[in-house]
């Protein structure tokens, strides 16, 4: 009996250590959000308007929280794959033509989704406490453009209808899938490139910039907005967050179509690259 108690106690202690790390990350998120809440509050105050490009203060903050949540849950599977390539452990996969990369996609998602859930809860807690209120789940906003009439910062409407939340969850799932595909692709580049980490960095920075991490695309200068609109990055960070903040069926449908299109495209790319990689494996032997 005592033995089981000990096992339980050890497991609980491990959870505690894990929680310390979570607390650290929560504090960092609090710091980050805190700074940006102050920033946006000042920006809105300075502009003298209640809305910036159609976003109210609360919506801007929620937007940031959601993009943060997705980014923090993003995949690092490229590390595992590039190490496996370097170590030469992939020879055995030649016997199974397609499964390795998609196995890794599944692996990556299996990792990202729980982290996403945790990050989401943390973000909601942080924003809820920081802004002093939580979005009340109200019926969807009529499908006009984002510039609906504002009711002031402390309005209970606006961000976060139930359908917005659901749309967000679906789109976040697609976003994480797309992100995983890209991460796998980066990992596979290890067959040709010595160090894939810089490639990942560039991808990550593109996500942060034209993907709309800090600012929604509406804030970009027009030419940048048009460029970003075509790139895959916005479908990972901007699109789900925007759906949450202002649910609009037209937007959601178009966005999801875009996400799916890119998922298909990158899946094809992964297959293509993997076939070339396998050929390289056979020629160079692991």
């Amino acid at each position, binding site marked *: 009996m005592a033995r089981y108690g000990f096992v339980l106690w050890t497991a609980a202690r491990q959870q505690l250590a894990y929680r*310390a790390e979570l607390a*650290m990350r929560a*504090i*960092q998120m609090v*710091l*980050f959000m805190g*700074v940006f809440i*102050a*920033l946006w*509050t*000042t*920006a809105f105050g*300075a*502009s003298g308007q209640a809305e*910036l*490009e159609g976003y109210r203060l609360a919506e801007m903050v929620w937007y940031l929280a959601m993009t943060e949540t997705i980014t923090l849950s993003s995949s690092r599977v490229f590390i595992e794959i590039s190490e496996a390539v370097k170590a030469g452990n992939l020879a055995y996969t030649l016997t199974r033509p397609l499964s390795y990369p998609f196995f890794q996609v599944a692996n990556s998602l299996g990792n990202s989704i729980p982290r996403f859930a945790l990050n989401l809860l943390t973000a909601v807690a942080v924003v809820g406490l920081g802004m002093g209120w939580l979005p009340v789940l109200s019926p969807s906003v009529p499908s006009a453009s984002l510039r609906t009439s504002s009711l002031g910062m402390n309005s209970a409407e606006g961000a976060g209808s139930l359908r917005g939340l659901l749309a967000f969850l679906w789109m976040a799932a697609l976003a994480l899938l797309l992100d995983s595909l890209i991460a796998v692709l980066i990992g596979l580049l290890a067959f040709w490139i010595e*160090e894939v*980490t*810089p490639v990942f*960095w*560039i991808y990550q*920075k593109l996500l*942060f*910039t034209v993907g709309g991490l*800090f*600012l929604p695309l509406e*804030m*970009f*200068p027009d030419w*940048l907005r048009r460029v970003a609109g075509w790139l895959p990055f916005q479908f990972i960070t901007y699109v789900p967050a925007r759906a949450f903040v202002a649910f609009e069926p037209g937007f959601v449908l178009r966005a999801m179509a875009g996400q799916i299109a890119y998922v298909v495209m990158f899946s094809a790319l992964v297959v293509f690259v993997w076939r070339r990689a396998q050929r390289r494996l056979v020629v160079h032997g692991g």
Partner: protein
Amino acid sequence: MTKQEHNEQMKTVRLVWGYLRHNLMSAMAYRGAFFLQVAGMLLNDAMLLFFWWVLFNRLPTLQGWDLAGVMTLYGIVAFGFGAATVVCGNAFLVARVITSGDLDYYLALPADPLVHLLVSRMSLPGWGDLLFGLVVFLVAAPDRWVSLPLFLLLGLLAGVILVGFSVLVGSLAFWVGNADQLAAQAINALVTFGLYPVEIFPGVVRVLLYTLIPAAFVGSIPAGLLSDFDWGRLAALVAFTAGIALAARWVFRWGLRRYESGNLVMVRG
């Protein structure tokens, strides 16, 4: 200054210089990795810049700060941070050196233990911050070449504040067990808050940023001096910097005496 004090100072200067050379040589042994780290840091730093650029595209000013102003602020903090971590690469790890007992190694050698501890490591990405800060300033400042000396001075002062603060919170490890987590968070907070104009924060927080976590002295005040110079405020900044550096040295010495008595708190159970 007596001859002996002068000799002591020269000794310290030679030691710091020796370590700088040595650390740089060590970095050059892996040139590729070094440049990669610098490039990575440059890329990292560019993110906030992107944000400011887009934001100021939509807003002309923010509490009196324009794009050039925030870029100058950013330049000073990045340069200071880079200088701090390049020269005193162990600054953020003081608590860990104390708790791990590695401090003994420095104590057994003739040089001043605090200085030795700080300079024995060089942060390689820090060179990226250093370069970034300088470039950003040169791009943003209207009278760049004229102000350059002042910028360098202000950047170095910011670096000294960062190191001083880090030594202060790191020295808590002489008294408290889990100081190293606490120290890391405090330093993180200082750097994070330091990057933004202090005027964007509400009153209560602003008071904090002038006192306990002196982020205002790291970024906003020096940046303000570049756009609107005033001898009085410069003197105040220098005084503050000297003050925090002396306080750091004093607290560390105090803690060191406690360390040497061997009576650090030990927790069992």
